[in-house]
């Protein structure tokens, strides 16, 4: 079957593009829309670096067949900063040395955004659970958890 036209609202902009059958949301974001923050890691749902928000909920974009979510709203890391200013999560990651190689960072930040959207005052255990699907091979996770708790405090104040 031929490619189909898919409409999505991505970072609050309507986007329309062609998708070949079986194309993932991740490939569409990266290849059709040029939004390369979400990374292709394992392509199996095991590493979390492709995490984006789909209708407000965090998902592994590599596991979503994009033709099945036409009309949905998607938020990626590119949609987090406002008017060129980093948001609280991004700032906390930067200042807390929560990134090293950076490959997991887009997924970590989106998982954190999803958590803080629903739970502005998470416990450390809740932060750990929120990023339990996101693998980092550099930091040992401690600085990432600290940064997310820091971001929550900044956002509340």
């Amino acid at each position, binding site marked *: *079957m031929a490619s189909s036209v898919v409409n999505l609202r991505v970072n609050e902009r309507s986007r329309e593009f062609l998708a070949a*059958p*079986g194309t*993932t949301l991740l490939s569409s974001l990266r290849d059709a829309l040029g939004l390369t923050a979400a990374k292709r890691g394992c*392509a*199996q*749902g095991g590493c*979390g670096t492709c*995490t984006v928000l*789909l209708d407000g*909920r*965090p*998902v*592994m974009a*590599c*596991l*979503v*067949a994009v*033709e*099945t*979510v*036409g009309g949905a709203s998607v938020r990626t890391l590119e949609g987090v900063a406002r008017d060129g200013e980093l948001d609280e999560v991004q700032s906390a990651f930067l200042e807390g040395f929560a990134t090293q190689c950076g490959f997991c960072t887009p997924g970590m930040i989106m*998982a954190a955004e*999803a958590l803080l959207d629903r739970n502005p005052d998470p416990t450390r255990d809740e932060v*750990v*659970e*929120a990023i*339990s*699907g*996101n693998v980092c091979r550099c930091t040992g996770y401690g600085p990432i958890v600290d940064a997310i708790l820091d971001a929550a405090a900044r956002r509340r104040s």
Partner: protein
Amino acid sequence: MISAVRTPDSVAAAVGHAAAGGWLMAGGTVVMPQVNSGSARSPELVSLRRAGIGGIGLDGAVARVGATTTLAEVEESAELAFLRGAVRTVASPTIRTLATVGGNLFVAQPYGDLAVCLLALDATVEIAGQQSPREAPVGAVLAGGVVPGEVVTAVRLAVPAPGTWFYHKAMRRKLNSAAIVAVAAVVETAGGVVTSARIALGGVAPRPVRAASAETVLIGRPLESDVLEEAGRAARADIAPFDDAYASAWYRDRVLPVHLRRAFLG
């Protein structure tokens, strides 16, 4: 290569596509990895995302859970609050927003912890097909699947009375890891002794299994450590453990009594 992705907006249309050889997909957490690795079993995918079979309803003490209800929705539902602890042991939040209740019935062990719960709950599975809709005990679906062209549309379960639901999952990490042993049970007591018991095990056989031998040991006896250890040893007759990256068959067999006890006594 995938040649088509169908997104039927009704169960009847989904059944039609499935009967024609399409591969049913709900959340995609099992199907899409195979698509991504080029090992999809059919060139045609049939997504149930728009088939209108999601959502949780409660009628008295009986809950009806639509097949495409996500694990995150179960986790957040007031009606199924007793399952919250169990669901939070399944994968990660970013998987639970996609993975579905119906899909969990078709996940290979040692995954499929919710299916273990549904077996302990003796859930009923509602199935649509080209013939009249039918119902089947969840144990039959776990053992034999459904006929090609059939679509699981919902599961029904009786919400257990307070204090009668037990769940414990042993895994290599605290979060986001598969079962070494999972134990789910509905056990009623009166006068300090067990009057009824349904115990299901995960991680210890190719599919979730009832621990009938353990249930027999418990009846008429108190939920105490030595009784539970005895029940756990008896349950070894009900399992067929396997080696995988998480644990060896030997280890699963060895630790089963410990985890069966912990399901009840912590």
